[in-house]
């Protein structure tokens, strides 16, 4: 069935009252939907408000309302379920449904189904249309045929490709820019696009062009799926008294999430997005909604709750909150990956992701990091911390590290190990950022003999150096230092340097 945007040239059935009035739905500063009457007077999608007003006066402008649209879509879907169990509202195309028509041979066939669907759809719009085809792209194109205006249109099985060959490119879903480019090249029909070579299409227009090319050849993966009339996955709770802290909210959110997730998990579904809405009191009462979107659908409460907690932690409450609403904004099929009972090392990536979100919310995006090396000769610049953006859990490595594996730190000590059992490698090191000033007693040659730092004193048993390092003269922070590696008499190894400003402790081996 087509969307409610009318086609004035095929108007034979009576027109809905609202469709006979010049009305537009406005999203932001642009027109997003128009009625037939408005379209006849030159208003079209994408116009600015002033352009629309200039084209049509009087013109009624209403705001685009996702909630109302979702509610009506769900209501219509529930009505279509009386005809077929496979009912899927088309994504990003309000007013369009894919409905399964297989297996109706014993119930009058596709013709009876289409007639019933048309009768149901005309409760919403008197000029609703139904078309039956092997593929969704062909069915949608057929609904724009003038023959579909009065009765359901059938495309014979196996004839989708010939039918699509004559269909204008405007009826193929694709990016407007791509459509304009194809039009500029003289391609007018889906058949013309389908006649191009796949390699040429991919080379010129990439994956998007290739997707349009597939559709033009009748290769459309979209199918109607088994529909289930959804209850709205929402729990709203009015607090007994307005609160200014998040702790009371967390109790409500946890309980609500528990109920919602449990209900979804029982149906084999998972949560792809949760929306939290806070109703705030104050001078101007208002509702604020924010969403949590895990990287993959989750059917467990704990990681979702941690994500919601991270969201609330980072949510400054500037007015008392008097109501909370928890809504499952997007539902998805539960992922196939499951925990492994027999693998003790299996850990939940969603839980790690939730922990990452909370740490980042508490300490900032650079709080959780991993070590990486940098190509620098300065000891304090040879490594860096790189922020962890996504969760990747380690996989077991069957092969034991070899002596030549450069990434593996050696066994630091080993009883009875033969000499040289481990390759030489550095010990772990601590670095002070920034380095701290120290008091150094040096001999006549400048070699450190004693170091005082933070009230402690180290007698230097052996000092290696100096190593004169300089660099970064092209940066705002050039350096020129004499580095010393001082092994104290009690075994510690301190990394010091001396520059124009004095002695500094850079770190120590540990």
């Amino acid at each position, binding site marked *: 069935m087509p969307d409610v945007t009318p086609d004035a040239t095929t108007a034979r059935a009576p027109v809905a009252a609202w469709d006979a009035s010049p009305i537009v739905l406005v999203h932001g500063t642009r027109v997003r939907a128009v009625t037939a009457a408005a379209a006849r007077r030159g208003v079209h999608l994408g116009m600015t408000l002033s352009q629309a007003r200039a084209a049509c006066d009087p013109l009624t402008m209403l705001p685009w309302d996702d909630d109302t649209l979702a509610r009506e879509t769900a209501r219509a879907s529930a009505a279509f379920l009386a005809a077929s169990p496979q009912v899927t509202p088309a994504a990003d195309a309000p007013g369009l449904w894919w409905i399964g028509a297989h297996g109706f041979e014993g119930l009058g066939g596709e013709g009876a189904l289409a007639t019933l669907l048309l009768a149901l759809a005309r409760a919403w719009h008197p000029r609703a249309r139904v078309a039956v085809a092997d593929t969704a792209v062909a069915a949608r194109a057929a609904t724009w045929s003038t023959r579909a205006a009065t009765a359901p249109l059938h495309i014979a099985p196996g004839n989708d490709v010939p039918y699509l060959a004559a269909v204008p490119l405007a009826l193929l879903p694709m990016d407007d820019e791509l459509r304009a480019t194809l039009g500029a090249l003289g391609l007018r029909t889906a058949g013309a696009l389908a006649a191009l070579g796949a390699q040429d299409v991919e080379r010129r227009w990439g994956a998007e062009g290739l997707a349009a090319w597939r559709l033009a050849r009748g290769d459309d993966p979209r199918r109607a799926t088994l529909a289930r009339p959804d209850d709205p996955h929402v729990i709203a709770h009015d607090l007994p008294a307005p609160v200014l802290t998040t702790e009371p909210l967390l109790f409500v959110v946890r309980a609500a999430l528990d109920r919602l997730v449990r209900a979804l998990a029982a149906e084999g579904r998972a949560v792809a997005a949760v929306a939290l809405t806070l109703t705030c009191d104050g001078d101007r009462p208002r509702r604020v909604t924010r969403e949590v979107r895990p990287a993959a659908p989750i059917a467990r409460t704990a990681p979702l709750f941690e994500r919601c907690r991270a969201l609330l932690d980072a949510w400054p409450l500037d007015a008392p909150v008097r109501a909370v609403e928890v809504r499952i904004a997007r539902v998805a099929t539960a992922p196939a990956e499951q925990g492994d009972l027999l693998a*003790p090392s299996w850990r939940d*990536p969603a839980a790690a992701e939730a922990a990452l979100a909370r740490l980042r919310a508490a300490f900032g995006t650079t709080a959780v990091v*991993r070590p990486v090396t940098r190509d620098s000769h300065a000891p304090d610049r*040879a490594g860096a911390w790189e922020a962890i953006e996504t969760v990747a859990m380690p*996989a077991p490595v069957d092969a034991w590290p070899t002596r030549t594996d450069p*990434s593996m730190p050696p066994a630091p000590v080993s009883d009875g190990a033969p000499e040289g059992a481990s390759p030489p490698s550095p010990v772990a090191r601590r670095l002070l950022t920034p380095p701290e000033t120290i008091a150094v007693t040096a001999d006549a040659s400048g070699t450190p003999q004693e170091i005082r730092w933070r009230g402690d004193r180290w007698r230097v048993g052996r000092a290696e150096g100096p190593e004169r390092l300089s660099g970064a003269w092209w940066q705002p922070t050039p350096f020129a230092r004499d580095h010393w590696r001082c092994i104290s008499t009690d075994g510690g190894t301190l990394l010091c340097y001396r520059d124009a400003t004095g002695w500094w402790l850079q770190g120590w*081996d*540990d």
Partner: protein
Amino acid sequence: MSLAALRLHIASVVAGTPSQAPGLPTGLTSLDDVLAGGGIPRGRISEWVAPTGAGKTTLARRLAALTLRAGHGVAWIDARRTLDPAPLAGALSMVWVVRPPDPSRAPWCADLLLRSGAFALVILDGGPVLPRPIAVRLAQLARDADAALLLLGDGTRATDGGSALRLRLTGPAMGQRRHLTLEKGGLHPHPVPLALDHDLPTAHRLCAHPTVPDRRGVARTGRSRATRSRARRVAQPRFPEP
């Protein structure tokens, strides 16, 4: 996995009790041999205490690398923000290093990471000595997550209670060996001193990582030691004296 081990494992999962998984090996055969389970116990708190520079970070790095190689998640809370990333890169590139802005937030980080259940080893490095109530709470979380919580401390202890194992490292005096003492948590009821055959390997600072090229071309010339030492003595800094 044998049938008996499988039966035990399923029973532990069904009962909700911590698994009887072996400990996390440290890579020190002398230490692993005297630890029940052959390594750092999971589901418990362990503490390693040592003075500055005694080598506890190197040991912890080895433990973390082995744990990662076994396919377990590892988180390292660098409470004092003094870890040098260069020697950790490579084998520990999959480790999560959490650097809170304040050391006092480190126990909270440990709480969060243990609670997630995503890590088999959480290292709390350089945080304040854990008060007993917090230690008990973290021990509970470690048990629930079947994870090992390792505390690294500079003083005589890292927690006021709740630890199952305490290992003390003694920095080597000049010309002597480094020593470990297993004060608590071993197979034997009394402290076990562990002597080490050779010292911790040390490396020159500029060879911090094998993938970083050594650019000290001067050190590789064929000059004699006497020439080099004379050159060092006469070398003057190119910057003004302090």
